[in-house]
């Protein structure tokens, strides 16, 4: 079925037009025209704008504003529009009405994905057009315009798929905005080392900034130097635009599959087990590929320096990667974990009532697999580092990942079984107590030792400090974390037994 014949797309188009599209287009045109007139004013009389050294510099500034607004409209606005549309249509019962038609899940998803943010697409098209005029007038490279537009458009599509999933899972429209705010906040720390952290490529911040930096600046210009040059994956240079598009396409395919699956059957988890492992593996592989050259043969001291950082900058890049791995694991475990109620119905259907079968369905089993994947990738990194002193650190990091993944998956299921709808609130509370509170207390009491009680600490401390003399101490803390795993496992088992007793 062609997009122009897709009933969902046609209806969304009608709704967008009826909701008033002219005002939105005029606003975009007005914003764009003001920025364009700013550039024209500079070109007419550069002496009025002493802060700009050249027309190119002025053009970059004005075009930068254009793409800033474009990102806000297309990526943030589009995300919000899609997720809100889906949440509202689910509430109204229209989503179910559409699901009952013979339309395929892929047609439903496509209709909402491309149809509901049409107003934002129109606005972005106007801004992109004005942006092109600015680029041409300022004699900037056309690749700057083309590259940035491709990246913004691909990111909007990528976020659109995320919005579909968010809209299918969340209950409140506002939650979509909260989701995107968290996403951007998490992105912020990676600006410190833009070329080495994957989030800068998944969201194409490096690609866009690099196009601005390298399209005009001369080699002697050291401003924004950390955004200059090509990133390397396992030592091989790659264009940031290509890397961003590749990452967004790969993850986008998984998101697409998840959206289709969730549309066809809302009772399934968004991710299948193999997909969860594949996404985790691909992202982790790419991340370690980015820091590969930084490490090879130089672990762990080289972690602290790179050619752009001062020797005393003490950039704990592997600690950041370690935290990112944990965060990614949490997201994957949350997305792939089955709801206990779904497992209960499966048990009722199959007539199986033993805990071993439950464990294989549980996300705790997936936690073991994710830890194993991390272990293999980390092992490659440590082996390549060629430093025998690093093995103890490797095991501490790996055990920390394993204990964290197990704690999270067991905690999530325990809370889902015990607290049902309030489960996520309790999981957040416990994660705050286990992860964040020790750092806050350490700050309040100015006692760094308290921070080591956090379940994040062993990995962070071991990986950040090349001269750590207290590795045995860290092993003791990890052992304590496995104590938490055992306690959670007992509670988890008890909750499942109670649920199984009711499964008649």
């Amino acid at each position, binding site marked *: 079925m062609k997009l122009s014949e897709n009933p969902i797309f046609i*209806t969304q188009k009608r709704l967008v037009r009826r909701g008033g599209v002219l005002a939105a287009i005029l606003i975009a045109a007005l914003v764009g025209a003001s920025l364009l007139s700013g550039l024209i004013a500079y070109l007419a009389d550069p002496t009025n704008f002493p802060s700009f050294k050249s027309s190119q510099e002025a053009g970059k500034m004005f075009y930068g504003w254009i793409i800033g607004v474009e990102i806000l409209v297309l990526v943030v606005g589009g995300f919000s529009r899609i997720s809100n549309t889906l949440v509202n249509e689910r509430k109204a019962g229209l989503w*179910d*009405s559409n699901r009952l*038609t*013979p339309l395929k899940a892929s047609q439903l998803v496509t209709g909402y994905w491309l149809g509901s943010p049409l107003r934002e697409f129109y606005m972005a098209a106007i801004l992109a057009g004005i942006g092109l005029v600015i680029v041409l007038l300022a004699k900037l490279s056309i690749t700057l315009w083309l590259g940035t537009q491709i990246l913004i458009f691909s990111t909007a599509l990528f976020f659109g798929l995320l919005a579909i999933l968010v809209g299918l899972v969340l209950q409140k429209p506002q939650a979509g905005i909260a989701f995107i705010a968290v996403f951007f906040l998490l992105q912020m720390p990676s600006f410190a080392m833009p070329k080495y952290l994957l989030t800068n490529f998944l969201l194409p911040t490096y690609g866009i900034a690099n196009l601005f930096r390298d399209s005009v600046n001369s080699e002697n210009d050291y401003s924004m130097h950390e955004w200059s040059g090509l990133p390397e994956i396992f030592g091989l240079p790659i264009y940031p635009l290509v890397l961003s598009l590749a990452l967004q396409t790969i993850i986008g395919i998984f998101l697409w599959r998840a959206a289709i699956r969730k549309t066809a*059957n809302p009772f399934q988890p968004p991710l299948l087990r193999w997909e969860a492992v594949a996404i985790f593996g691909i992202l982790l592989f790419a991340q370690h590929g980015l820091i590969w050259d930084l490490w090879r043969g130089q672990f762990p001291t080289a972690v602290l320096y790179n050619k752009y950082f001062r020797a005393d900058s003490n950039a704990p890049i592997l600690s950041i990667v370690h935290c990112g791995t944990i965060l990614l694991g949490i997201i994957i475990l949350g997305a792939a974990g089955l709801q206990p109620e779904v497992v209960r119905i499966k048990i009722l259907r199959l007539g199986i009532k033993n805990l071993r079968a439950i464990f294989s369905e549980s996300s705790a089993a997936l936690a073991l697999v994710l830890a194993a994947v991390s272990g293999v990738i980390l092992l490659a990194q440590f082996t390549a580092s060629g430093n025998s002193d690093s093995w103890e650190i490797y095991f501490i990091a790996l055990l920390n990942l394993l204990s964290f993944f197990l704690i999270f998956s067991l905690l999530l299921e325990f809370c889902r079984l015990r607290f049902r709808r309030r489960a996520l609130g309790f999981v957040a509370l416990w994660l705050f107590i286990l992860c964040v509170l020790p750092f806050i207390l350490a700050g309040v009491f100015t006692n760094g030792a308290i921070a080591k009680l956090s379940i994040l600490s062993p990995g962070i401390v071991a990986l950040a400090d090349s001269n750590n003399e207290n590795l045995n101490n860290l092993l003791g803390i990890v052992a304590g974390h496995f104590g938490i795993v055992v306690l959670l496992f007992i509670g988890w088992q008890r909750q499942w037994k109670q649920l199984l007793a009711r499964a008649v």
Partner: protein
Amino acid sequence: MANPFLAIEHLRVDFPEIVAVNDLSLAVEAGDVCGLIGPNGAGKTTTMRAISGLQECTRGSVKVGGHELASEPDALKRQLGFMPDFCPTYDQLTASEFLDHFARAYDVPNRAKRIEECLQLTWLTEKTNALCEELSRGMKQRLVLAKTLLPDPKVLLLDEPASGLDPLGRIELRKILLQLREAGKAVLISSHILTELSGFCNTAAIMERGKLVTFGTIAELGQKMSRRQMSVKWRGDGEKALEILKNSNVKNLEAANLGATFNFDGDTNALDELLKTLVVQGVRISEWRGVGDDLEQIFLQSGAKELM
């Protein structure tokens, strides 16, 4: 039943704390209008959502037009029309655009003509170009019914279609349902207001707490009834009639002007015998009927306790 349009066997739906539908089996044939009756929370809506595939079943099978829900959901969708108990409409679309959306989704041939037919059938022709948000609740309900009828499905699931309708709307709905029955559709219609269903249901399924209490044609269920409230009227002197009634198996006999009401314990044959006795003894009967409609009596006799 040989090949019912809608066949449900041992259907079970589980919710976290309760079994919402438990071991439900029923069948609706072409031209049947089956009333799914039960109090709030009996599992009527869950049953309909499970039949349409919107609610996951734990066990059991659902067949619509010979297509199994579990293995042929797409083929089943083309045979089934589901009208939920609320009216989901796109408020910013006109009535005809709303129907066009679903006509395209069902790939209905000759779209414009079919939309016109459905609007006509539901008395909405005048509202063709009105925005959905401008329609009254009753009109929205009829529009959603029109949408349900668009693909000409064999089986219709109507969940509380008359709730919120004014008396005129109910009369119109009744006419539409009779037309559908005549057109040979299999209709499963739920309600907890029995007067809504009487007159056009020829079968009934009574549910309580997720379980089917009784199921059959109205005639079959009437036969099964052991107790009913009756009203009789006669011409002339009623003393003889009252004497006969007092001496027969009746309770709570209350005489009124040229008539009486009473409760009768016994099956239809025993009731027929009583009428015969009255006539043979020379009582000039002018009216002989059950008090309350058939469905209400069936429900009261079914053992289900929690209506309304």
